């Protein structure tokens, strides 16, 4: 059974239908890249999957680990291992990154019926993950994302992912805003977390991320649908030819 099975998913915001029938199946161990022009619905899909109240599914289903994902609260989805790295991470003033993550880890552990992590254990765990994404000690102790630079915010998202060790990660344009060195570091961090047991959806506009984080599958999203799927070569083709030919193919077919 697939880890995540999306079937004919429709949904959007208020009366606006943005997702118009998404089908996608993801197995453990796979990395799926989703590409597509601006406004095609990629971020909307990530929000529906992570349970944003304003982005409601209207029909279709999403099965995650054999459970109805759409029926779960956003925090329960997170505790079941779904993680969203935001395209635009928000700032949480007054709450240190470390404290925030420790709360998050412990909520999940309590949910799993495990004991809370001690401060010492958490610190060790966090330090190890900081190395993974070359995270500055200062950033770990500063309030979550407050006054972080654009690139630091993105790096922080991957740091959160590393600390929380999710099963299904959705990375929404994590590469945008990163300088070349940071892109390498972040990609390395992402790759370190690839395993047989977990899966990733990587939303991006650029091949350069996929040079480092090599996907098993590439999908093209267009006007709320996945209109083309392929392997990593598809991304190279998109890089070369743009989206026009997809647009033509789709309108011709539709």
């Amino acid at each position, binding site marked *: 059974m697939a880890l995540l099975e999306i079937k004919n998913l429709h949904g959007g915001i208020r009366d606006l239908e943005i997702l118009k029938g998404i089908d996608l199946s993801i197995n453990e161990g796979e990395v799926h890249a989703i590409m597509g022009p601006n406004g095609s619905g990629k971020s909307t899909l990530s929000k529906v999957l992570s349970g944003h109240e304003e982005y409601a599914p209207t029909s279709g289903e999403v099965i995650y680990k054999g459970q109805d994902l759409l029926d779960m609260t956003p925090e329960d*989805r*997170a505790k079941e291992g779904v993680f*969203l790295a935001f395209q635009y991470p928000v700032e949480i003033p007054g709450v240190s990154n470390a404290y*925030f993550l420790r709360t998050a880890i412990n*909520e999940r552990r309590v949910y799993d019926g495990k004991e809370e992590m001690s401060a010492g254990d958490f610190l060790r765990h966090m330090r190890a993950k900081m190395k993974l994404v070359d995270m500055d000690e200062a950033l770990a102790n500063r309030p979550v994302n407050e006054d972080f630079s654009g690139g630091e915010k993105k790096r922080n998202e991957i740091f959160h992912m590393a600390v929380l060790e999710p099963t299904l990660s959705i990375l929404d344009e994590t590469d945008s805003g990163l300088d070349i060195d940071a892109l390498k570091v972040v990609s390395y961090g992402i790759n370190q977390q690839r395993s047989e047991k977990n899966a990733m959806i990587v939303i991006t506009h650029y091949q350069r991320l996929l040079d480092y984080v090599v996907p098993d599958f590439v999908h093209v999203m267009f006007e709320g649908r996945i209109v083309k799927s392929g392997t990593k070569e598809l991304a190279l083709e998109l890089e070369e030819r743009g989206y026009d030919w997809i647009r033509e193919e789709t309108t011709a077919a539709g």
Partner: protein
Amino acid sequence: MDSVEQLAEQEYKWGFTTDIETDTIPRGLTEETVRIISAKKNEPEFMLEWRLKAYKHWLTLKNPEWAYLDYPPIDYQDIIYYAAPSNTPLYNSLDEVDPELLETYEKLGIPLEEQKMLAGVAVDAVFDSVSVATTFREELKKQGIIFSSFSEAAQEHPDLIEKYLGSVVPYRDNFFAALNAAVFSDGSFVYIPPGVRCPMELSTYFRINAVDTGQFERTLIVADEGAYVSYLEGCTAPMRDKNQLHAAVVELVAHKDAQIKYSTVQNWYPGDKEGKGGIYNFVTKRGLCEGQNSKISWTQVETGSAITWKYPSCILKGDRSIGEFYSVALTNNHQVADTGTKMIHVGKDTKSTIVSKGISAGVGQNIYRGLVNVLKKADGARNYTQCDSMLIGDRCGAHTFPYIDVSNSTANVEHEASTARISEDQLFYCKTRGISTEDAISMIINGFCKEVFQELPMEFAVEAKKLLGISLEGSVG
């Protein structure tokens, strides 16, 4: 925004009443009422005279009308001014106290039992109008510290009471101060002799139990030269659908090199979701830094009451004296808090710090009203004020009125203010990390209040955090 907009389903957890016999006097306020109260307390003559002067002065005053305080007129003839659990002579030990009463304190979590006493908290518990149990007094007595109910102090230490009563908050000060002076039924008195550092936190819990009683307690704390004391005050009241009046007066006097730290956690019944019932908390608190190098700090966490009207203030008379005010005020549902401080710089090189954190949820209104007054001779006076507001949802309000009045050109007065709102996006972000709305809010609020919580004694800080959580329960999604 609908999850943020949802109103509180909160339950007031201290809303039980205690079924014990009470000795009350008839409703209403006349000269006779004042005489009865004084007689019941067996007070020395000067006290009665002082009360009567206050009463006569009160008759000439009008109920104050404040811009942001909108409440129906209080009928002062409909209040019972004295209510005491009957059979309450002076107790020698806790065993003699009515078990029901002790049970009430249990429920309140007041550390009256032996083991908790060993933890080092001495308690002077005021139940309605009389002080029922004062623990640890003997222990303190050895060091010359006086910690007793006001009534006892009036009999045992009339000299001290006569000297200090009304010396910081005269009965002429304001409407409620005059009323309190006339009818106050009990409270706490603390005296720390020169050079003594009080070895434990002193604490008082107030509780309004009887129906239609007003509570008018009076606290007087004197730290003599070089003395130190930390005093904790906590309050609860049962749930009643009628409003109850609480008009307390607190006076602090710090002599040369002395230091008083006064912490309050106030969670009087705030009224229900529709704004029915709740305590009117109209309190006058003032400290006098009488001697040089003295220091008074007020720390308050105000989560209860329907209306709070309270400005713990410092008169910085001694040269190089220091005044501090750290406040967290939370209003949910229909609560209104109008609070702040006054720092009056009289002496040279006096210093004051004001940190005010206002949190509003539901349709709650939070008002910071502060005055920094630097008098002519206060060379080198310094003040730093920081006023932060946090809004939860978009139907609540925060207002700040920082008044600054400086008559000395060498003074340095700084003011910073900020307003933040907990957004739906922040809450969603937390949820995607597995943190529920409630935990997210309490995390954000705790971060917001950190500077104030740091000032509270450890156990109080823990309690305050819990209280904020409870008070905000259901205020969002």
